């Protein structure tokens, strides 16, 4: 199955709704086409000066058709957009489920922007396929049939000319448009990303470039990238223009066929004046439906590219997920995160911490990018360990691998002797949680941002955690306390506050094993060192309960309490474990 068909399946479009949209679209264009036919018949018949009463039906029909088109158009627009938007909602939910249930570590490997681009823009491209390609394409098919069937009883040769013209317009124009769209897509993928990167760099680093005297040079580089992009995109201009000129060109054939046929029919005496009028004038109104096809073809090219990216993101097993699984009716308030989380987030400290072990562990984002090599590690229950190493040695990568979010390149990680690969994901998360430094702060209240780690957390627990991590002052300044909105539209959170908020999550969660990534970065030394000491002292229960195990990645070796086991990662990826003297 092609990616496009697979993704279209995820739209779950009900045939009845699609049919209704196509019917409304056909009625819209049909009304215009019928108006042209009936008015042509009306005036040529009227010229023969018949009894006025013979024209009554036609006059009423013309007036009715004149009014109905607008109404049909409105219905068609609404029905089409509704079916497309419903499809996008289903698609997005299915993609979300597929990504959330993927057993492998693809999610950890995805860049943040990519995730947004996939579920945002690319999902939209598939919805646009319904609006711009599927519905108009089906309508064009219906209308082409209607046009040929209308002309056929009047003149077979004229109908034949019309059929050929429609086929040319319906096939050639979309093909050239598709080619233009593909060329544009290629240009966007290849040259535009360079161009965008250049433009961003100049704007972001403008001051530094000016001081370094390199601004002029970079602007010239930008102009060169722009010229390369222009040349690439210019290749699409001709096919794209050809596609729009196809309809007026093929009209020559249809009109010529019709005019000659009308002559033959009238001279032969077999046709009425009305029929001649229809033959003469109808070709000019017969191509409205096929004019939408070039745009449909470009949309198809874009949607196909989007489907390819989406299929790669969700992986091969996406269809095995069950879209019926989500329960209905969950809302964001009061506790938004419950959903399907059955019995998770048990009370703090209630379970004995398991033993975390790594054997011959190679961690990295692939065999060619191994950052940590041949690591053996044993973290006893209640033990607290620091991980240090020069910048870029892969401490974060190690943390993600220990937590089971990134698959080991080689070796294994186990909890109480069972390998992570053999444990259900739920069980792993119940016992061990990692807090990566780039964790998301949700655009919701401060309370929900803490509750995300554990259901049914009381305000007291939240406040206690915020106090413990030193955010009491910050909380005091927030306009609405725990109800303050965070994120883009709410209070912006500074780097240091963010780190401590993530730490407060860990405090609220109090998992048997907690893995922390640079929790004191962006803090002033005194406060950061104090937090670090309280995290690493196994007898200190002010942040994490005594008896739970902790691994803390940090830069601040000076602040590590004496006696703490310190895992040092060397630049070559090997490591050594020593107690802090």
């Amino acid at each position, binding site marked *: 199955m092609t990616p496009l068909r697979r993704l279209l399946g995820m739209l779950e479009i009900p045939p009845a709704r699609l049919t209704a949209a196509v019917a409304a679209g056909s009625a819209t264009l049909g009304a215009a086409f019928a108006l042209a036919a009936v008015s042509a018949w009306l005036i040529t018949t009227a010229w023969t000066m018949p009894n006025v009463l013979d024209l009554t039906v036609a006059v009423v029909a013309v007036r009715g058709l004149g009014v109905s088109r607008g109404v049909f158009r409105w219905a068609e627009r609404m029905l089409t957009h509704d079916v497309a938007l419903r499809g996008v909602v289903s698609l997005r939910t299915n993609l979300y489920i597929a990504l959330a249930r993927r057993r492998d570590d693809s999610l950890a490997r995805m860049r943040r922007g990519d995730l947004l681009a996939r579920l945002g823009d690319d999902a939209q491209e598939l919805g646009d396929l319904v609006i711009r390609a599927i519905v108009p394409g089906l309508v064009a098919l219906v209308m082409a049939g209607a046009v040929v069937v209308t002309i056929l009883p009047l003149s077979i040769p004229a109908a034949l000319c019309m059929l050929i013209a429609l086929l040319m317009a319906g096939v050639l124009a979309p093909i050239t448009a598709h080619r233009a769209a593909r060329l544009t897509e290629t240009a966007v993928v290849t040259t535009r990303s360079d161009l965008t990167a250049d433009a961003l760099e100049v704007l972001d*680093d403008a001051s530094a470039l000016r001081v370094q005297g390199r601004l002029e040079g970079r602007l010239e580089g930008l102009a060169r990238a722009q010229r390369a992009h222009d040349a690439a995109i210019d290749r699409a201009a001709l096919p*794209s223009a050809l596609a729009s000129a196809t309809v007026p060109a093929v009209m020559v054939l249809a009109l010529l066929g019709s005019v000659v046929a009308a002559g033959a029919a009238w001279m032969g005496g077999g046709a009425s004046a009305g029929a001649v009028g229809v033959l003469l004038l109808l070709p000019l109104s017969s191509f409205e439906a096929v004019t939408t096809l070039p745009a449909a073809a470009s949309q198809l090219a874009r949607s196909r590219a989007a489907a390819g990216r989406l299929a790669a993101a969700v992986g091969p097993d996406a269809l095995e997920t069950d879209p019926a699984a989500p329960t209905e009716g969950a809302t964001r308030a009061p506790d938004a995160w419950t959903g399907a989380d059955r019995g998770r987030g048990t009370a703090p400290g209630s379970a004995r911490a398991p033993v975390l072990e790594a054997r011959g562990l190679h961690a990295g984002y692939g065999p060619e990018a191994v950052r940590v090599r041949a690591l053996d590690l044993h973290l006893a229950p209640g033990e607290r360990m620091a991980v240090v190493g020069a910048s870029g040695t892969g401490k974060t990568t190690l943390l993600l691998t220990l937590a089971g979010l990134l698959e080991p390149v080689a070796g294994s990680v186990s909890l109480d002797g069972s390998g992570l690969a053999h444990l259900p994901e739920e069980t792993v998360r119940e016992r061990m949680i990692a807090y990566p430094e780039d964790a998301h702060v949700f655009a919701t209240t401060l309370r929900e941002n803490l509750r995300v780690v554990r259901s049914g957390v009381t305000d007291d627990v939240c406040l206690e955690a915020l106090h413990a991590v030193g955010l009491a002052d910050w909380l005091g300044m927030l306009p609405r306390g725990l109800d303050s909105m965070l994120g883009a539209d709410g209070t912006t959170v500074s780097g240091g506050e963010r780190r401590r908020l993530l730490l407060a999550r860990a405090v609220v969660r109090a998992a048997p094993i907690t893995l922390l990534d640079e929790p004191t970065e962006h803090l002033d030394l005194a406060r950061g060192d104090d937090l670090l000491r309280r995290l690493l002292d196994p007898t200190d229960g002010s942040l994490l309960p005594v008896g739970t195990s902790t691994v803390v990645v940090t830069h601040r070796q000076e602040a590590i309490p004496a006696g703490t086991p310190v895992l040092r990662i060397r630049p070559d990826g090997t490591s050594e474990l020593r107690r802090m003297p």
Partner: protein
Amino acid sequence: MSISRAPLDPRLLREVRAARVHVLRTTALGLVQAAAVIATALILAHLGSDLLVHHRSPTDAPGLLVGLVLALMVRALAVLAEQRSAHRAATDAIADLRGRLVEHGARLGPRAAAGRGADLTTLATTGVENLRPYLVGYVPQLLLSATVTPLVLVTILWQDPLSALVAAVTLPLVPLFMILIGKLTVGRSERLLADTRSLWAQMLDLVEGLPTLRALGRQKGPETMVRDLGERHRSSTMGTLRFAFLSSMVLELLATLCVALVAVEIGMRLVYGQMELAPAIAVLVLVPEVYLPLRQVGAQFHASTDGVAAVSASLDVLAEPVPADGTVDCPDLRTSTLRLVDVSVRSRDGLAPHRASLEIRPGTVHAIAGPSGSGKTTAVQVLLGLLEPDDGRAEVVTTDGSVHDVRSVRRQSFYTQLVHLPQRPVLPLGTIRSVLAEVAPEGTGQEALEEAARAAGLDDVVATRGWEAPLGRGGNGLSLGERQRLALARALLSPAPVVILDEPTAHLDGASEERVLELVRSLHSAGRTVVLIAHRSPLLEVADVVSEIAPTTEEESAPAALGSSVGTSAEVEAGESR
């Protein structure tokens, strides 16, 4: 909004040559298309009336048939030329605007970026691309409605004045109804749009947080929220569309209604023999053409709003004046003092820095300290003349006591005498060797390069990757810490008398930090002036002078700035360092 902005910004035509040429060419081609449409209708009417009235077969008038074919071909060619020209013009206009935006934005300095932030970069990258659908789709149709519509209307008037009257009466109803519908729905649809946007943002927020939810083991609840928010977004969007599509309904309605009225009206006159057949056919063919460009304008309306918005935003940016370069050469910085006098810069929360004064004497190590968000980096930008302070001034003072305001100094003569290392290192493309060699004075040997690399802690990077390791964009291929060490080595090799280091230890561990301190000491002993921006204490210990920079205290700042926005400037700093 549709009414408040002109559909074709006159500034665009004045400023962007490609757009001007495009409009002229499209207008000319519009006239050609109008002529072709009119010729087609008249020939068809002539053929029809010859046939029905005079029993003369179309095949007996090959001249007319050829004329018909020619008219249609000319129309097709005009469309081809117009579309091709439109694509070219769009490409040229986008290139032109993007280039000018980036250059202007860069020259406006850090203030422009801070005030507008992501907006300017979005505009320069994706925003200007909205010009393509606007110039290719919308503008040609707009111009056709200014050429084809009136010319066809005049032809109808010539053929049959009464029909022209019907068309002329219904035509003004189009803009009238559009304005009425716009007025009726504007408040409502803006409210709905805001709703829609917020639901969309919530949805994207959940999507963006998926990796975090997964790390917390909570990824299996929110899918119901994704569906729920999606459903609410859909129904909210449909609510907006219900009104948005009313305008397209009115357009279609008026267009077909006019055709119907004309058809019935000429039909009735034909029945009573009050009209000839030829003009009747011509009018019937021409009436829909009056409305066609208007309908297309309506259909392309959405393309136009984004395009018009991009154009006006771009031209607004370009209209902002760029601070002028100075006129006098910068004094020798080996002997001159750099000075800030009572400098204040407005930030989101108040003033940061607030009345900062400091004096950097030649040959000293001068640390600028202060809490996050106090305006340390901003103070240096003022010192370098990159940013105009809201109050106070930056000066260069020579040994003989003459004072130059930084703004009066030719920037290039100033910048060639200093090395500036921002928090996020900015490196040229090339190899490790070329990046280092280009700042060193002529004739610097391999030994000096190696020495600098060792001092900056770059030797292990060179050992594993070699001197010729290629660096991508912004030093891509190296980690942030490695890039910083490379930038430090550059500072060391450069002969410039003043070295400014902004948080040089931010991404380094303890051992590398020690090397930076060593490096600062060696710069100092070479007689160079070192300016350190720091909030880590070890750096402050190597400084001869420490200036504390402070923002406005809470009591001093405006009441409106209190509360909700606490900590934002700290975030700006953190953002820069990431």
